[in-house]
Each structure stands twice: as structure tokens, then as C-alpha cells.
């Protein structure tokens, strides 16, 4: 795996090394992880205005972006092992409802790592064919503790499935997803009021967890549509013919419409190590966080995008990635991995790249590479990445076999 990653990085028709950014840093020990990175496309200048880096909680300078030319094989190899383990543990949770559906499921890759934070509070949920012809991908970035993100991972797809079934005749995606998120939020808050146990520190300390929450970015892939529902500051990005198209908008407290909404409810946004609702929470929407209602709500923003032949991939990730990697850079990385992929072998033939659960080596490589890039750029958070292959010719090719 590590060798393949290095090989993929090395290949490239027009290598353009990413310019290293030198910025003074007051970190005591500057842990530089050398990582060689070659992108097919240049980063557009508008990226600066769009990118809003997350401030360091300790009031330190922004993270240093440093990409050396040399590659530390030992470090890369070590990282690859850790990430492979995380990847395997995550994909084990995937349940394929029907074996015959595997061929129609999009190929995907998942990586979810603790990174430089002490605790792992991210969750990822992948449910191919979770309902007839629809595929579900979700990333949940918890804060305060992990159990809200864990509940979202285990329950939200079931709730959404029920909402879809009850609205089968005339399915309106915005209403369906809003109902699903509201029910998920109710379940979280109902559980925090009871004395049920969690498999986390809350069980040991205090059962009253009004101050725990999670982001939720969910993508439902249908044969002709991409439905993205977002609540919080995780993000979904579509790569279409080399162009990065954001399918979600981060719910930061200083986003003008979010700022107005919080203020209209009687709350306020205070700049305390960055803009925070009441100076406490760095996002304006989340599942849970009952103590900050009605300022922090669980209502998702829903986008419905028609699929086209030019669609290449879909990336869902937590802000551990997006705080240090731009949409365009992420799309470039994934595009490069997909391009390097060989044509798929016939099913069942020896050496097939397609895993039984629908995950794909190219997508896995892409998610691993994005995660390593985030860590190399000193992301200070958990990092969770889901890469979904949306190319149509793949399916046509597999159908013809």
C-alpha cells in the first residue's frame, strides 16, 4: 500500500510541485512531516478569499504549510500502517444488503484517523444500497465527547430510510432530510435526559450530556441525483470535469446569515479564539448541544444536484481536512488517484482491485492520501475522509463485462 501510494504520487503528466508556505511559528517543537505532492492543476488565486483557516485554540500562529521535495519513506510507511488499520476497521462496519447490488454501488474509500488530537470523536457511516437504488455516505465530527457522533453513525441512516419510505409517493428531499435530522437531534437529546449508558467517558463520569454534539454531512447518491444535507462545519465537494463544486456551505457563526439568525434568537457571536456562539461553540449548527439551543440548531441545509457525465468524484470530510486543504487541492488529489487507476478487471478474476464490500483501491488511496496531506499540513483535529467514485464509464464498463 505504501509503495503504491508513493508510486501514485510519483506519476504525473505535468508535475507541478506545491509551493511551500513559510510562516513564522511559535510552536515549541515543529514536527515537520515531509510529503512530496504533485498536483495536476494549479490552485486558483480566488482560493485565498474563499478559504477561512481555523484558528489555533492556543492563540498561536496559523498552521505552517510545509511540503518538502524529499519523501521520508520511514515516516510514510509508518503512517500508512496506521491508516490502513483505521480504514479496515471502518469498512468492516459496512453492511451490504444484497450481493447482487454490489455491481451497481459506487466505489468508495474511507479513512478516519485521530490525528493530533488526544481523543477520536469522528464517525463515518457508509451504507451502499441502504434503500432501493440509493447509497448513503455520512461524516460526523463530534465535540465534547464521541457518543453523539456515534449515535449519528448508527441511527441517522435508519431514520432517513424511514422518512424516505413514508414519503415514497412524492419524495421531497429537503423536507425528508430536515425531518430526519430533527428526529436524530430529538433522539440525542432524549437520550441525554435519560440515564442510559454510553460506551464512552460519559458513562464513567456524568450521564447528563447536554454539552456534547456533532456535525453531520450526509450525501445520498441516486442514479440521477446527489442529495447533500449539511449541519455544522464538515463539508461535501463534487469534482466535475476537474472543477471543485461545493455541495455544502460551512455553518460558521460569522457567516452573515448565520450571524443574523443567532442574533435574532437572542444569542450572540463572541470572538473567543475565533467566532463562537456565546463564545463557546465554533459552529452555528450541530446535532445535540442542547444547552445552546435555540441559537445552535440541527436543521440541515439541503442541496440536490443532478448527476452528469462529467462527474468524477464526491468528497465528504470533516474540518480536520478542510481547515488545511482547499476544495481544489482535494479534487486534484482524488482526480490524480482515479486517473492512475487501471481499467477494472472482470469480476472474480485474480488480482481484482474491487473489494467485496464495494470499496475500491483508487478511492481508498485517494482518501488515505488526503488524510496524510492534512496531517502533513499540521491539522490539529481528527480527520475523516470519504471519497466516492461517480464516473459513469466505470459502471458501463463493468456492465459490459
Amino acid at each position: 500500500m505504501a509503495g503504491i501510494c508513493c508510486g501514485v504520487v510519483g506519476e504525473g503528466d505535468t508535475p507541478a510541485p506545491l509551493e511551500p508556505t513559510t510562516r513564522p511559528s511559535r510552536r515549541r517543537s515543529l514536527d515537520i512531516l515531509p510529503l512530496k505532492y504533485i498536483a495536476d492543476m494549479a490552485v486558483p488565486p480566488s482560493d485565498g478569499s474563499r478559504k477561512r483557516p481555523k484558528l489555533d485554540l492556543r492563540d498561536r500562529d496559523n498552521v505552517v504549510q510545509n511540503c518538502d521535495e524529499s519523501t521520508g519513506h520511514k515516516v510514510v510507511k509508518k503512517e500508512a500502517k496506521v491508516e490502513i488499520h483505521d480504514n479496515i476497521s471502518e469498512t468492516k462496519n459496512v453492511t451490504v444488503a444484497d450481493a447482487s447490488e454490489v455491481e451497481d454501488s459506487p466505489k468508495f474509500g474511507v479513512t478516519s484517523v485521530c490525528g493530533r488530537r488526544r481523543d477520536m470523536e469522528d464517525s463515518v457511516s457508509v451504507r451502499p444500497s441502504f434503500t432501493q437504488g440509493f447509497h448513503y455516505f455520512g461524516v460526523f465530527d463530534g465535540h465534547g465527547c464521541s457518543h453523539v457522533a456515534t449515535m449519528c453513525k448508527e441511527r441517522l441512516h435508519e431514520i432517513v430510510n424511514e422518512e424516505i419510505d413514508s414519503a415514497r409517493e412524492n419524495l421531497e428531499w429537503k423536507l425528508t432530510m430536515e425531518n430526519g435530522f430533527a428526529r436524530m437531534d430529538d433522539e440525542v437529546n432524549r437520550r441525554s435526559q435519560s440515564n442510559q449508558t454510553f460506551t464512552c467517558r460519559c458513562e464513567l463520569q456524568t450521564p447528563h450530556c447536554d454539552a456534547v454534539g456533532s456535525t453531520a454531512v450526509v450525501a445520498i447518491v441516486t442514479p440521477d441525483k446527489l442529495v447533500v444535507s449539511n449541519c455544522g462545519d464538515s463539508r461535501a465537494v463534487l469534482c466535475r470535469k476537474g472543477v471543485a463544486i461545493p455541495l455544502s456551505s460551512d455553518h460558521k457563526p460569522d457567516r452573515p446569515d448565520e450571524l443574523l439568525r443567532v442574533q435574532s434568537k437572542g444569542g450572540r457571536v463572541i470572538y473567543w479564539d475565533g467566532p463562537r456562539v456565546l463564545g463557546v461553540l465554533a459552529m452555528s449548527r450541530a446535532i445535540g448541544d442542547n444547552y445552546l439551543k435555540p441559537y445552535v440548531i440541527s436543521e440541515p441545509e439541503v442541496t440536490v444536484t443532478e448527476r452528469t457525465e462529467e462527474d468524477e468524484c464526491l468528497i465528504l470530510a470533516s474540518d480536520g481536512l478542510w481547515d488545511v486543504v482547499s476544495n481544489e487541492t482535494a479534487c486534484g488529489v482524488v482526480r490524480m488517484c482515479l486517473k492512475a487507476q487501471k481499467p477494472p478487471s472482470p469480476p472474480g478474476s485474480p488480482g481484482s482491485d474491487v473489494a467485496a464490500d464495494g470499496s475500491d483501491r483508487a478511492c481508498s488511496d485517494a482518501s488515505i492520501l488526503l488524510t496524510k496531506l492534512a496531517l502533513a499540513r499540521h491539522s490539529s483535529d481528527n480527520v475523516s475522509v470519504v471519497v466516492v467514485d461517480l464516473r459513469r464509464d466505470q459502471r458501463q464498463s463493468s456492465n459490459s463485462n
Partner: protein
Amino acid sequence: MLLLQHQQTHIYIAPEIFFYYKFKLIIIMPSSLHFDRFNPITHAATTVAIANGVNCPKQPQAPPSSTAARRLVVPSLSSGRGIAAPDTVALHHAHVVDPNQCCSIVTQHINAPVSAVWAVVRRFDNPQGYKNFVRSCHVITGDGIRVGAVREVRVVSGLPAETSTERLEILDDERHVISFSMVGGDHRLRNYQSVTTLHANGNGTLVIESYVVDVPQGNTKEETCVFVDTIVRCNLQSLAQIAENRTNNCEHTAQHC
């Protein structure tokens, strides 16, 4: 807001006496770092009139001179709650506030007896028993839990803080008073000191928590109070749920016996 000026520069072992503007004598013992031990008052204090008003004291218009650099502030209780324990509020919740500081007070009524609430509040070694934002706590100095003990608190993720080093200033099991100050840590609350008192209120308990803290650079006094009040209020609401649940569980157990 009731502002009292220091009349003497020396601090006696005996309770200090301050003059009210109408020359009424009031005995007040501020929570101060100067005192190593809590000195109980042997005589009941005269009733103190506590004016209702905003939680955050406004900065005096006059520029602070050397004599007015520090002032004694008794944060006001919200309307309707001042009746419960005005003497104790003035006694324990008077803070010495610098010009660059702010202070505030938060109250919470709990449907549980004082003994049940105090059993949770007094655990200086286990603040995560009711404080939502504490992930773990270790007492690093002090044999046993007594005045002078220092704990290292680790904060949960998502907050603008990582750790907090806190010293126990007051622990009075008779009068149900606990006080701690923040002496270090990775956060923006410098010179934070809080006092929590419990008061019988019918069959329930009135919890009063007041604090004083530096206003961080770049923020206003109002913003600082909004931030800290949110944390304190969340903790006290959690305390109410825990104490009430424990009381209910005890009652159920008693019925079964």
C-alpha cells in the same frame, strides 16, 4: 450595584468595618487571597440592601485613581431572588474587582436538600461529577482535599480551552461554601476566582455562584460575562439534574425498604 470603598489600608485579623454612605456599619468579609483561612463572623451582620441591576458592573466614568484602583463589589441578584439570602450573598459573594476585571453571579434552584447538593459540589477532586466541560481531573498538590490543594483539569474538545490549573481557596462544610481560583492553564480566563454557596430554600436548595475574572484583550466585559455565565449556568443545570436524580433514587430505595 452597591460599591464600597476601602477606608483603611491595613487588614486586621478581626472582620473589617466599612462605612456605608449613610454611616451604617456593615461587617463584610470579602473572599480574598490575603486570608489563608476562612474567618467566620461571630456576630450577625446588619442587613445589606442589595440593589437589583445588570450582572456586569459598568465602568465608572471617572478615570481610576490610586485610591479607586480596586473596589469592593457585591454582584446583584436578579429580581425576586435577593430575598433568599442577602446577608450570605454580601458576606461570601463580595469580590475585589480591578478596573480591567468583571464579575457576575448565577443562581440555580434545585429540588433537592442542601446535603444532597453539597455532596456533589464539595468534591474538589471530582469536578466532572457535575461540570459538563471537564474531561478529567487530577489533584496535583495537597494531602487530602483542604484549602491550598491544586488540581489540574483537562477540558473537553470543542471549547476554547485545553487545561486549567485551579487552587482550592475555601471549603466550609458547615456553611456550605466552596471557592477556587484559576492559577494557570491553557485558557484566556486570567485571575479567575469563584465562590459557590448553598442555601436552604423550603425543601430545595438555592445555589449561588459568583466569580471575578480579568477581561481578555480584544473582548469586552459584557462578552466575558456572557461566555463565563454560559459555562457556569450549564454546570449548575447539570448539578440540578444530578442532585434531583440522586434524591429521587434515594426516595425510591427508601420506599422499597
